[in-house]
């Protein structure tokens, strides 16, 4: 009872005391922190660099940690601390780190995530830091994936082509020609093969298109589709020409016209389609090259599968966004950081990283390594595709993430499911898309 308490002197004193205690406690909690752990970049003249890696597969983790340990053993004055990051959260985590000036020194990411950080001045320009060996070993088209405004902001080192993972037994039974990297299917042959492989409730192909934009755009490069075109004034505009439409139309028709593609997998991620693939429900699944590891782990005993090259259009080109290593602009030891990157990407080390992640290296010398040219798990098929990988058309476009999420993803999802036609898709992707991009290019 308030009045009763206030009527006594001890009550008033206690009230003040309680209020003072309540006010003092947060300050008391703050005090230990002020003298707490401080960031130690160097002690005793030794440089410590933080390397944030996104390696996540067992062998890849092991390879990264071993390489860091090897570097540290040979460079007592330049120690590298391995910091584990995660693909799902890397963008937000880097964004706050850059804003707070606490970013890791060496940053592992994908090239399509670099544009905003590069334009924002968060990443160091590596152009003058790159050693000649690295510059020459990685082909120009790979460097393009991490080059913005003529400056290099990341070293592309691992890349993943899209391939068709197929049930070999079904393909043999159907009598279709087995494509090779030298003689891939055309998009028409692929559509015909999918039709022949469709029997009853079993489909010729399952397109996992939960994230339809990058798959569509990267594959459309084979027919000359780019969607994003840079005008002479430097601004980017979206077009949806006939060459851009071949791949989306093929997928749409497979789902909605000849029904050689499963409708249910349109909303799935790649891994979600694997149980159906193992059960023989789908003869082919377009997936990234690294999915082979999941297949090796999860496929039933004796399941006979193979890797086929993606279909070709006017060329075999397809877009990729390689994994990259960058250096933070705030890093005070950029030369040392680049020396570590150079060590990490020496050809034998690049091979170890590629094998660990079931991906392809960008380095030409690493690509020649016999370990990456074996028939087992179709490594050779993937390696043969490396030369046809190009910079994904959209990755240097500012505003692409918003265009992708707000315009292209729902548009393509509706088109593939048959809810809208090609004209409606075109209107959305181009007209609405250009409105989005215009905001970023004022």
């Amino acid at each position, binding site marked *: 009872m308030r009045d009763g308490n206030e009527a006594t002197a001890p009550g008033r004193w206690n009230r003040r005391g309680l209020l003072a205690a309540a006010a003092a*406690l947060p300050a008391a909690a703050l005090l230990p*922190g*002020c003298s707490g752990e401080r960031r130690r970049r160097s002690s005793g003249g030794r440089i410590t660099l933080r390397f944030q890696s996104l390696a996540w597969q067992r062998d890849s983790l092991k390879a990264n940690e071993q390489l860091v340990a090897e570097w540290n053993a040979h460079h007592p004055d330049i120690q590298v601390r391995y910091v*584990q990051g995660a693909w799902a959260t890397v963008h937000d985590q880097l964004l*706050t780190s850059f804003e707070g000036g*606490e970013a890791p020194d060496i940053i592992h990411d994908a090239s399509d995530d670099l544009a905003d950080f590069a334009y924002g001045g968060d990443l160091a320009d590596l152009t003058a830091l790159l050693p000649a060996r690295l510059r020459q070993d990685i082909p120009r088209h790979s460097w393009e994936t991490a080059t913005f405004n003529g400056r290099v902001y990341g070293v592309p080192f691992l890349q*993943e082509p899209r391939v068709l993972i197929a049930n070999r037994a079904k393909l043999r039974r159907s009598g279709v020609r087995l494509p090779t990297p030298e003689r891939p299917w055309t998009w028409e042959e692929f559509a015909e093969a999918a039709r022949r492989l469709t029997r009853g409730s079993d489909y010729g192909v399952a397109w996992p298109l939960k994230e339809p934009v990058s798959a569509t755009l990267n594959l459309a490069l084979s027919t000359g589709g780019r969607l994003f075109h840079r005008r002479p004034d430097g601004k980017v505009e979206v077009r949806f020409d006939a060459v851009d439409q071949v791949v989306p139309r093929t997928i749409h028709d497979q789902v909605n016209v000849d029904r050689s593609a499963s409708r249910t997998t349109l909303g799935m991620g790649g891994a979600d389609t694997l149980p*159906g693939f193992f059960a023989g429900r789908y003869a082919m699944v377009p997936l*990234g090259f690294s999915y082979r590891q999941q297949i090796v782990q999860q496929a039933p005993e004796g399941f006979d599968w193979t890797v086929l090259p993606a279909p070709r259009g006017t060329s075999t080109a397809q877009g990729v966004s390689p994994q990259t290593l960058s250096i933070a602009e705030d890093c005070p030891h950029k030369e040392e950081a680049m020396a570590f990157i150079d060590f990490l990407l020496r050809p034998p080390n690049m091979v170890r990283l590629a094998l660990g992640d079931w991906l392809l290296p960008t380095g030409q010398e690493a690509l020649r390594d016999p370990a990456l040219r074996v028939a087992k798990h179709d490594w050779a098929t993937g390696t043969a595709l490396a030369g046809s990988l190009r910079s994904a058309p959209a990755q240097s476009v500012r505003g692409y993430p918003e265009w992708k999420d707000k315009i292209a993803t729902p548009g393509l999802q509706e088109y593939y499911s048959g809810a809208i036609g090609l004209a409606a898709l075109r209107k959305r992707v181009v007209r609405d898309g250009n409105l989005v991009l215009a905001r970023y290019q004022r």
Partner: protein
Amino acid sequence: MSGTERPAGGRRAEAGRRTGRPGGARRAATRTGQYTALLAYLLFLAFPFLWLVSTAFKPPRELGSLHPTWIPEAPTLENFRLAFEQQPLLAAAGNSLLAAAASALVAIALATPMAYILARYRGRLSRAATGWVVVSQAFPLVLVIIPLFLILKGLHLVDSRTGLIMVYVVWSLPFALWMLTGYVRAVPPELEEAAAVDGAGRVRTLVSVTAPLLAPGIAATALFAFVTAWNEFFFALVLLKSPEKQTLPVVLTHFIGTEGVADLGPLAAAALLATLPSLLVFAVIQRRITGGMLAGAVKS
């Protein structure tokens, strides 16, 4: 009561006889329906957990089956071995435990006196404080993270467990305060007055009379603060850089790769281990929580 009047139960029983469904049978049917609905709801809640348990013990080939089974055909502990081999789960669990327990203790230590003041001394200040507590719950995380990061950086508390615990305390404090204020109001002030009449001083009254009555509420609030910090992901992701300081929710994301592909078996095993401490704490102090929550719920 006149001879023509009958109790309500009697009328219902007669109505039941007229319709051929006695009142007891109707009650039983109602109860059966309620239990069925409750069971369905429990199954709905338990489904993800049971599926997690099932997945954690499945070998990779069963994970890739088109017809998954609840009970693994060849149960294995391999996923647990791999989870521990790939990521420092024990250290991460230790970090989570430290952050959750410390932040819960500090939040309770701060919130209890504050809640007492807000509940007992109602005035303009306490109303404003209560209003602020409610408003503070509406701030989205992304709005506060950058300023918070900069403040902590200025205090050299980025990448520091102390910094993370402080953030958790501040984050859980408003709701803890809100909960505890309800519990304090549920303790009749007359009891404290009676103690004062009997000669007990303020401290003695608080310790001997109020505190025991508040204990269930404090336990429930502490549990809330503990579970909030144990499950928290975003602050831990952004604020802690050193691998040896990372908490369990952050380490769990390391099992997920590009395009959402996951190392499903080890991920399920690690996630199952991550849920156990919360379940254990709930199991241990379940009765106290129930009592405390009810007390806080019904008293305005």
